[in-house]
Each structure stands twice: as structure tokens, then as C-alpha cells.
């Protein structure tokens, strides 16, 4: 993989056709192409309009509650230093949490949704559709649609509707219509299929608010740009806290929007180690959702990227305890960063994530969502191997309240 020439910058993609190396592109039905080209143009204009940025900044501060804190996780740090000492080392990185779970609606998803909804308003679109896995993107979309008085329809796999009931109820309270998707495997990929079908059918008045850095160009780049606020703030906050940049970054990856948001502003700082953590489910040799570790390049949902599939290119079921990571693909920019070797993609199992969830809850008084619990599981492995002056940032992309019923079930408890 390292045979490919390293570019001068990892931050210039995609090219004008939406490609990150061989990944990305626009693989959609002709019906959608005029809309996608219109969106690309509208985004380009918005991106260069100071008024759009001013709007973003104002709502980010006063509605979302940004900047989110960069928090020194002192007890987690101490604990992992003890782990390091117990194994005969004297290390243990200094761990910081980027607190995206403190955003309004409880996850990083709202950063992107704010951008897309402001763009939809500029384009005069009155009806918003979205797909959602864990429900966090759906809740964020329903929230901003409520705030701006837009119609909102959220597609959600019937399986996910069942395992994320609190979020379904939230969306309903916010006035959104949640459509349980019964086709295929009834999870996130099928929700995305149904959203694309809706878009094909209602193309003239509908804006499709995609929740991650996947889909046809310009979505992967646009969603990344909206999420880069995470990494940009982290740079400033770390300079303020420690007077220098971090040594490593860790984030979980489903489609990969929280991860790219943290990583992207640091990609050209070549000494910074970057780790993306995929969901290994029951294990990489069993059912999992780790597209980079267990998949290969293919074309789905409008882009070329790594996918879980069989010999014939049929998409395989993904599995993760976390509905937000349960997707058989990954954003195309991650696929490219993987092949370029700039980001190390590793994985954590359901079990490891559950353990990390409990560790974080007890040591820090923070209930992380199951998604960032995957990242925390790898922090628990990586941090003890690093020296004590190593600064490690982990993105706590969402809060765990939504997962409590499921976690209780796995731990053998029942919440009545």
C-alpha cells in the first residue's frame, strides 16, 4: 500500500470529479444527477460566501453550544498509567476527550446537519429527508427542521427502530415522520436505499441530508467540511492547554464523519499518529462492520469505497452492537487514507466496546455512546504503550443515553 506516491498534502481532495484517488465519484441514477450538480454548485457558492459562514458560526455558538470542550481525562489517564506500570512499562499517554457528546442533540451529527439545512434553505428546498442508523443523525435533522419549520422524513431500518426506541420517540416529538424500512437487512444501508428512492421520486422539492462522509460527490467533501470544526477547535484548544499539538488522535468509524472531522485538520502534520477504529462486532472472522479490515473496493450508494461483499459483489450484512457503526461501507476519503497509509485503521469488538463504556462511565462520570466506546477500547490498548508526555485525543462523538436499554440487556439487567 505504501507503494503509492505520498502527496504533498492529504487535504486537497477530492478532485473536481469528486475522486479521492480511485475512491468517491458519482454513481447514481440519471434522475438524481441534475440535483446533485445543482447541490454541488450551491455548496460551492455557499462555501465562498462569508454570510453563510457567519450564519454557521452564530448557530454553532448559540444553538449547538460550540465550541465543545477539550477535557483532560485525568482519571482515565491515571488508570491507564497503572495498567502500563502493571505490565512493566512506565508509560501512559495523557488523554484528552473532545466532548462532542455535549453538543445539542447529543452527538457530532448536528454540526453537519446545521450546514446542510442552512444550505437547503439557501436552495429554497422545503422538504428534508434523511437516513439514520442509531438515530443521532435523524434526531439532529429533525431538530433543525423543527427550528427552521421544514418538513422532515427520516428513514430508519426496522431493526434499528426497535433497538433505538428513545431516539425514534425524540424524532416524533420534534415533528418528524420516521419511516421504518422493511426491505433488505432492515438496517442503515436499507434506510439509505429508501432515502435515495424517495429522493428519486420527489427530486424537485426535496433536499437529501446525508449523515456521513459517504454518498455521491459532493457529499463526502461537504459533510467533512462541516465536521472539520471538531479538528479545528482541537488544534486551538490543545495549543492553549499544552502549548503544542497532540501526538495522536483516535476516533470511531462507521461511515466516518466524526473521525474525518477530527482527523482532517491534522492530516498534514506528519508526526501525528491517527487511528480510526472500526466495529469488529463478534470478531473480524465472524460477523462485523469493519469495511477496511474485512472488505474490498466496490461501488454502493453513489461512491466507490471499501465494502463488505461476497464473491459476486453482493453487499453483505454488517454487524455491530452499535447501530451507528453498523454499515457495510465507509466514506471514500477514509478508503483513500487507508490505502495511502496516512491513517491506521484498527477495530474493536462489541465486547471491548462494552468494557470501555463501563470503564469511562465509572472513571470519568461520562456515559459515552457505544460508537465512541469503540474508540475508547483502543485508547485503553494504545495509551499504556505510549510515553507519559504523549498527548492523545479521543473523540467522544456522542453520549450513551440512547444506548442504555441495549447496554442493560447485554449486561443482563433490565430497565423497566
Amino acid at each position, binding site marked *: 500500500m505504501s507503494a503509492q506516491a505520498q502527496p504533498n498534502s492529504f487535504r486537497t481532495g477530492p478532485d473536481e470529479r469528486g475522486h479521492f484517488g480511485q475512491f468517491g465519484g458519482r454513481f447514481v441514477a440519471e434522475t438524481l444527477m441534475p440535483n446533485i450538480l445543482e447541490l454541488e454548485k450551491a455548496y460551492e457558492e455557499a462555501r465562498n460566501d462569508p454570510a453563510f459562514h457567519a450564519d454557521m458560526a452564530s448557530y454553532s455558538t448559540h444553538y449547538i453550544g460550540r465550541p465543545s470542550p477539550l477535557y483532560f481525562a485525568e482519571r482515565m489517564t491515571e488508570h491507564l498509567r497503572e495498567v502500563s506500570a502493571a505490565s512493566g512499562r512506565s508509560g501512559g499517554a495523557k488523554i484528552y476527550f473532545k466532548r462532542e457528546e455535549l453538543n445539542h442533540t447529543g452527538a457530532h451529527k448536528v454540526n453537519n446537519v446545521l450546514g446542510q439545512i442552512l444550505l437547503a434553505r439557501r436552495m429554497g428546498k422545503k422538504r428534508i429527508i434523511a437516513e439514520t442508523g442509531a438515530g443521532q443523525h435523524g434526531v439532529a435533522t429533525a431538530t433543525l427542521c423543527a427550528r427552521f419549520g421544514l418538513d422532515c422524513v427520516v428513514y430508519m431500518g426496522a431493526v434499528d427502530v426497535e433497538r433505538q426506541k428513545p431516539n425514534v420517540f425524540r424524532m416524533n416529538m420534534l415533528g418528524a415522520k420516521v419511516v421504518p424500512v422493511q426491505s433488505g437487512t432492515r438496517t442503515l444501508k436499507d434506510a439509505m436505499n429508501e432515502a435515495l*428512492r424517495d429522493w428519486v421520486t420527489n427530486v424537485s422539492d426535496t433536499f437529501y441530508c446525508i449523515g456521513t462522509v459517504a454518498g455521491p460527490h459532493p457529499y463526502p467533501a461537504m459533510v467533512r467540511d462541516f465536521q472539520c470544526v471538531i479538528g479545528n477547535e482541537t488544534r486551538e484548544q490543545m495549543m492553549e492547554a499544552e502549548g503544542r499539538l497532540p501526538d495522536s488522535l483516535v476516533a470511531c468509524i462507521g461511515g466516518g464523519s466524526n473521525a474525518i472531522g477530527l482527523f482532517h485538520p491534522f492530516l498534514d502534520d506528519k508526526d501525528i499518529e491517527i487511528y480510526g477504529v472500526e466495529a469488529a462486532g463478534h470478531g473480524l472472522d465472524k460477523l462485523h462492520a469493519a469495511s477496511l479490515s474485512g472488505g474490498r473496493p466496490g461501488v*454502493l450508494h453513489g461512491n466507490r469505497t471499501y465494502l463488505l461483499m461476497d464473491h459476486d*459483489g453482493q453487499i453483505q450484512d454488517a454487524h455491530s452492537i452499535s447501530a451507528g457503526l453498523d454499515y457495510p461501507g465507509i466514506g471514500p476519503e477514509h478508503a483513500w487514507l487507508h490505502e495511502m497509509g496516512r491513517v491506521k485503521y484498527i477495530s474493536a469488538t462489541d465486547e471491548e466496546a462494552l468494557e470501555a463504556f463501563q470503564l469511562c462511565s465509572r472513571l470519568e462520570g461520562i456515559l459515552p455512546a457505544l460508537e465512541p466506546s469503540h474508540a475508547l477500547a483502543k485508547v485503553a490498548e494504545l495509551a499504556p504503550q505510549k510515553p507519559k508526555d504523549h498527548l492523545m485525543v479521543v473523540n467522544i462523538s456522542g453520549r450513551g443515553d440512547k444506548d442504555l436499554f441495549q447496554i442493560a440487556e447485554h449486561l443482563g439487567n433490565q430497565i423497566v
Partner: protein
Amino acid sequence: MTQRIEARFEQCRQEGRAALVTYVMAGDPDPETSLQILKSLPKAGADIVEFGLPFTDPMADGPAIQAAGLRALKVGQDTVKTLDLIRRFRAEDQDTPVILMGYFNPIFVYGVDRFLADARAAGVDGLIVVDLPPEEDDELCLPALEAGLAFIRLATPTTDDRRLPAVLQNTAGFVYYVSITGITGAATPDFGKVATAVERIKRHTPLPVVVGFGVKSGAHAAAVAQGADGVVVGSALIDALKGTLDSEGRATAGSIDAVTKLVKELSDGVRSVAKRAAA
């Protein structure tokens, strides 16, 4: 092998009528029944046959075609087996054009060059790959044209006059006009609007223009045949087949007849509309 497609449209023109294009899913509900259905289509009045490449995630198709694809995949249908069915069809029928219709991923995974060589050898005449717009022509469209296979493009109600030339640029065989903004098997189109759209497209290209999506009956077929050079029917045939399957999704004695009966009705509908022979 665009010649077979051209010859078939020429024959229809001579007969002063539109062509009937029928779509069924390869391997649905099992490979042998699927082959028998494929063979029966021309005999029942189909001029061109489209054979669906099953895919797990057909984003632009409706529930009928998705379910048909999943039925086929469940019994082990794949791209190799689909090409084999066409080879067996071609052994008996040298004239009916066969178009493969599906999504890009199975073809990409098979390997584009290998796929084009094998498809051509099996007797395939053209391809319709729903998720490859002109912006991605390098992927399959241009290699297919080079390999002598027609790459048939979809034009839709959202394809305006500015965009049409890009859509038509590398298309061959015929243009497939999607009559609605929506998925297959959904709403019935406004036939008046369809006729206007066909006229508009014909101002941009000498290729035949066929119309699909939402055509369910002989009467619909006749209405579309007024203005178009051909009519495509898919979901309705798949629904007719599905209606005969047992509770396990297996074919029954009436399965093939149910499809051919509807093809006959559609063929009668198309043939009821006399057109002036091409000038």
C-alpha cells in the same frame, strides 16, 4: 453487437409499429424457470429482452424488482450463472437482442474487461447500468462501446435540454426514457407528457426512444406506443410471476404461463397502434 438491436428496430419500423421490450430478473425464482421464461418471451411477442442482473441494493428499483433479485440471490444466482443462461438462450435464438440491466458493483467486482468479453461471448447485445451517469463514462460505457456492446442510457424527466447532449453522447442501440421521477413499478405516467418528452429527445438523436417505468397493461402499452419507438415492461411481469409462486417462493405449474399471458396482452397493445413506416 448493436447490429441485432438495429435490425430489430428496423424490422419493427417495417411493420409500422413500436417494439416491445420485456424485463425479467435472471434466476428468479430459480435458474431453470428463469431460462424457460426468457425463451418464452420472444415467442409471446417480445421484440427485445432485458435480463436483470440481481443486486442486493437496487437503489432505483421498487419493491417488486428488489424482491425478485433477492429471490434469485437466495438460490445462488450470480453473474457467471446469468451469463450462462444467456449462452443457453442464444443457442436457440440468434435474433432477439438481449440487454443486461443492473447495477455496477457486481460488474466492477467481476472485472470490467473480463465481464465485457464474457458478456459478448455469451451473446449479450447491450447494457443498462442504472448507477453509471455520463459523469462516470470511463468506468464501463466507453470500454463497452469499444468491446462492441451498446451502452444504453436512461434519460429522465429531470434531464433537461442542456443535459441531454451529455446523456446521449456515448449512448448506442436506443435511448431508454424513464417516464416518471421515481422507482420502477411505481406511479403510472402521464402519457401526454411522455409523448412530449419523447418528441423532445428525438430532436436530439436519431436513435430509437423507448419508454419504461409504470407500464402495467396492454392499454398502457398502446398509449405509450403512440409516440415512442418502444415500450419497456418489467415490474408488471415480475408481479405476474410472483403471483404464481408458492409460499416458499418456488415456481408452480402456472408460473411461465402467467408471464407469457401478460406479454401477449402487451404485445397486442403495442401492435394495435399502427404507425407510418419510417420515411
